[in-house]
């Protein structure tokens, strides 16, 4: 039983959790920084506690303040959302020690999967395909050179503590190796406090395809239809969809099986995502995210599941419910960020003068915005997630264009024009673009509208 949930997050994901808790009849506690006093998550929760000043390290990353807020309000569970403390093993451990249920896997599992080199080894042990590369962290330049010769160039160096492209370097020949290793290590050290790196063969033209898993404490694990998250900008996902265009059911089944095998291998509990590289019809383990993902709604749209409700039920010790594991129709999510795509994604702050989200059939909006809300510079730039469902992918593309056109938003620039440009791109319309899709294109304005044009340099 969970009696009261503290939501250790802000923005749309805090709202997402509050919504489901309300539907389940569980009271919620919002925590907020002084910058978020007028935020919807504060206003819609049953209780709210101010936990610190605007900088996240002093509020949303402030573990003592959050634990104190849970104790003061009698919350017996904490939902971390995504980002902030969601994959912080120490936070999960402190929750465990304080007798507060952390809604997610155990601190031990978070810790294991947080070490990307170790996770790779575990995946391999569970029989999940991995790209050729080092078995774990490489101890020195000599070992990197040896592994690189074995698997063949190009290779990619990755930070073991990393994520999001930091501490990552593509190396195309042995001459580049030394300098790239030094740079990757320094970057990893600066970003994560650990310079440990490992080696993988670099896959040139890949798609990012991931599988959502859900596991209860009674040994039941299910894997949902995959999400294709290949439309990215600098390793930041922009558009996600389910199912992945053109994926054969047989391959889907194998990916689902692999994800379940990994989750079972580590004794996973709760919602998690196994990320794969898809290249030339084969898939390889990339990493596992031990939390709810931003893009979880696309899975909800094609299966009817409520993943947050399932997270909470599983955390309360209940068994997994029945789930539809075949996609029905097609869904896409568009991340609407406070960034100006016409000015190199310059972050935007300030008041939202007018806000009116689209409605009608097949349209879901998850957002903490409202007319009059002020975007502050302290947190991430995600303003709204537009999630669109229709009976097939072509219909989703058309409906999404309609919804984006209808999305009324003034006061700040957003990524809405970029999404519309992507939807009008021919290669995107065919489906199955690689992760280099956006980098290979330049942006042009024509008749006040943003358009993509295939640039000279090839997709990488």
């Amino acid at each position, binding site marked *: 039983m969970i009696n009261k949930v503290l939501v250790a997050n802000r923005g749309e994901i805090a709202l997402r959790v509050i919504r489901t808790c309300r539907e389940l009849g569980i009271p919620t506690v919002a925590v907020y920084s002084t910058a978020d006093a007028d935020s919807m998550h504060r*206003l819609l929760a*049953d*209780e709210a506690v*101010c936990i610190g000043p605007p900088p996240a390290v002093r509020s949303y990353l402030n573990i003592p303040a959050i634990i*104190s807020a849970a104790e003061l309000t009698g919350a017996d569970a904490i939902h971390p959302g995504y980002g902030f403390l969601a994959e912080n093993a120490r936070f999960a451990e402190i929750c465990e020690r304080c007798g507060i249920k952390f809604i997610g896997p155990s601190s031990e599992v978070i810790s294991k999967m947080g070490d990307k080199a170790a996770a790779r080894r575990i995946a391999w042990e569970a029989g999940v395909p991995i790209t050729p590369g080092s078995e774990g962290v490489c101890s020195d330049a000599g070992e990197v050179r040896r592994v690189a010769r074995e698997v063949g160039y190009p290779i990619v160096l990755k930070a073991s503590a990393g994520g999001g492209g930091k501490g990552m370097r593509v190396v195309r020949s042995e001459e580049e190796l030394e300098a790239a290793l030094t740079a990757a290590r320094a970057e990893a050290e600066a970003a994560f406090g650990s310079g440990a790196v490992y080696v993988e063969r670099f896959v040139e033209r890949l798609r990012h395809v991931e599988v959502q898993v859900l596991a209860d404490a009674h040994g039941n694990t299910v894997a949902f239809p995959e999400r294709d998250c290949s439309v990215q900008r600098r390793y930041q996902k922009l558009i996600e969809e389910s199912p992945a265009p053109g994926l054969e059911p047989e391959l889907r089944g194998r990916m689902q099986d692999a994800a379940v095998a990994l989750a079972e291998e580590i004794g996973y509990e709760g919602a998690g995502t196994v990320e794969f590289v898809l290249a030339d019809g084969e898939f390889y383990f990339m990493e596992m995210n031990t939390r709810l993902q931003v893009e979880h709604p696309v899975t909800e749209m094609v299966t009817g599941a409520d993943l947050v409700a399932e997270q909470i039920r599983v955390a309360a010790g209940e068994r997994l419910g029945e789930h539809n594991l075949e996609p029905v129709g097609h869904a896409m999510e568009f991340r609407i960020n406070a960034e100006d795509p016409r000015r190199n994604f310059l972050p935007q702050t300030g008041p939202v003068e007018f806000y009116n989200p689209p409605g009608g059939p097949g349209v879901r909006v998850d957002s903490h915005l409202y007319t009059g809300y002020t975007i502050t510079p302290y947190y991430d730039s995600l303003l709204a997630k537009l999630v669109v469902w229709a009976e097939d992918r072509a219909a989703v593309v058309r409906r999404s264009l309609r919804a984006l056109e209808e999305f009324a938003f003034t006061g700040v620039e957003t990524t809405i024009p970029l999404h519309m440009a992507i939807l009008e791109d021919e290669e995107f319309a065919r489906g199955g673009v690689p992760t280099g899709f956006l980098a290979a294109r330049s942006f042009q304005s024509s008749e006040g509208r943003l358009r993509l044009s295939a640039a000279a340099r090839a997709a990488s």
Partner: protein
Amino acid sequence: MSELRERTARERAGAEGDQEESLPLETVRQVVELLVESGVGEITVRRGELEVSVKAKGEAAPVVQPAFQRSEAPAAPETPDSGPEWEGLHVVRSPIVGTFYRAPAPGEEPYVEVGDRVSAGQTLCIVEAMKLMNEIPSEVAGVVREILVEDTSGVQYDQPLFVIEPEE
């Protein structure tokens, strides 16, 4: 500006006979013109008994108030920024989330009572967070005028705890 002063002086001289009498409207007009030309928000000029003050029209951007309503009266703790305005007084706020204690230990005397004189740096209370006792000092010397929180209750970040009247 100097011209304005001169003129005002002249007018005052001219107005001397009919005592305070009417108002120096020509001066006012000039101040108004100055305001409009300069684009500033407010001009106040005072000399002796004469004062002219002109303000521009409030620009205030339209503010839409969010109006979300919770179904039940929320059991939320008092919000940090609520409470009366304490003009000229010093408000000590909680620097952390935790439990407020007025005394060093159960059964002991409170650190301070209303009416006590406190010095800067003197401990006013404890806020406990995660088993750590954090002593909260007064930032000013003065007299405790109000204690805003009940002993052993929870406090949020930035929540007002004490009102202190500073010593001159």
